[in-house]
């Protein structure tokens, strides 16, 4: 409890510090100007998104093997957070691309693979949320998550090779950071991953609780039906 409180406080301070570092401390990038500052939270969001989907895959595999509900709850929480951060990436990406590249969207490897990834785990989420609460659906969803994970690699390879059709791609942003930029970037990364961890844990416990509530409901129904 106290650890969580401390971490929450740390994340709060971190968010403020991260913004200060990103906006004020780190210098304005020479070529792209201020818009490059999107990148301080855009890239960590992508990392959080991957972390969420990996959590989903691990949870799903463990669920298929052990059939313990808590693994399924972890997988669902991971998928949800992955989707939230993936959405952030997909929205901020074009906002950066428009001034930097002059277009909102390019069929560029990273963009395409991220979009498809979000699509796959959206299918997982839809299945899990609207497919009913039966065990069969959970197994189906878990299998889907496991099947989607190697696909991340294939989508990436496919669009990487595809790049031949788009020779004008600039891969700005990842390399050549000045030390101040790097500091700001690392802090933002740590802060966002911390936030991700906190949210994941919260979401995970929420799903466990909702299962508990459903189980209690059934139990009451059962006692009521018998008596």
């Amino acid at each position, binding site marked *: 409890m106290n650890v969580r409180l401390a971490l929450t406080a740390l994340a709060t301070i971190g968010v*403020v510090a991260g913004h200060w570092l990103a*906006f004020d401390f780190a210098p304005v990038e020479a070529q792209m100007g201020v818009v490059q500052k999107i990148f301080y939270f855009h890239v960590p969001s992508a990392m959080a998104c991957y972390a969420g989907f990996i959590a989903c895959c691990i949870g799903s595999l463990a669920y298929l093997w052990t059939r313990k509900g808590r693994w399924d709850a972890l997988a669902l929480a991971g998928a949800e957070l992955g989707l939230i951060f993936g959405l952030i990436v997909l929205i901020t990406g074009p906002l950066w691309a428009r001034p930097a590249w002059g277009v909102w969207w390019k069929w560029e490897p990273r963009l395409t693979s991220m979009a498809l990834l979000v699509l796959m785990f959206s299918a997982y989420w839809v299945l899990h949320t609207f497919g009913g609460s039966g065990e069969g659906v959970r197994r189906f969803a878990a299998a889907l998550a496991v099947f989607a994970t190697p696909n991340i690699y294939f989508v990436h390879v496919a669009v990487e090779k595809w790049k031949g059709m788009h020779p004008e791609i600039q891969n700005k942003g990842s390399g050549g950071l000045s030390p101040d930029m790097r500091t700001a970037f690392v802090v933002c990364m740590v802060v966002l991953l911390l*936030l991700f961890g906190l949210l994941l844990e919260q979401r995970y416990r929420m799903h466990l*609780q*909702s299962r508990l509530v459903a189980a*209690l409901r059934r139990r*009451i129904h059962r006692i009521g039906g018998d008596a």
Partner: protein
Amino acid sequence: MNARSRRLCVALVASLLSVPALAWAQNPETVTQFVGSSDLDAMKYRHLWLAYGVIWLLIMAFVARTARRQSELKKDLDLLSSRVDDMEKNRE
């Protein structure tokens, strides 16, 4: 536990309110340099604001939803467990 998510929410709001101030304070000389600059520069700022707005709006909406759902669950859980206790007692 719900109180904690509310705390997280409030903390996020507070910290985000400080962001405009921070951004405003950044490199004043650069800003004066841009006076009368082209449309593209103005656009860059707009995009920056939009991007950060989206990030924090999404995260906060998510936290708020989670908090609401959790408080509902807490209520349900208390209600249901007391009902189960009652029923078990009646049966004995």
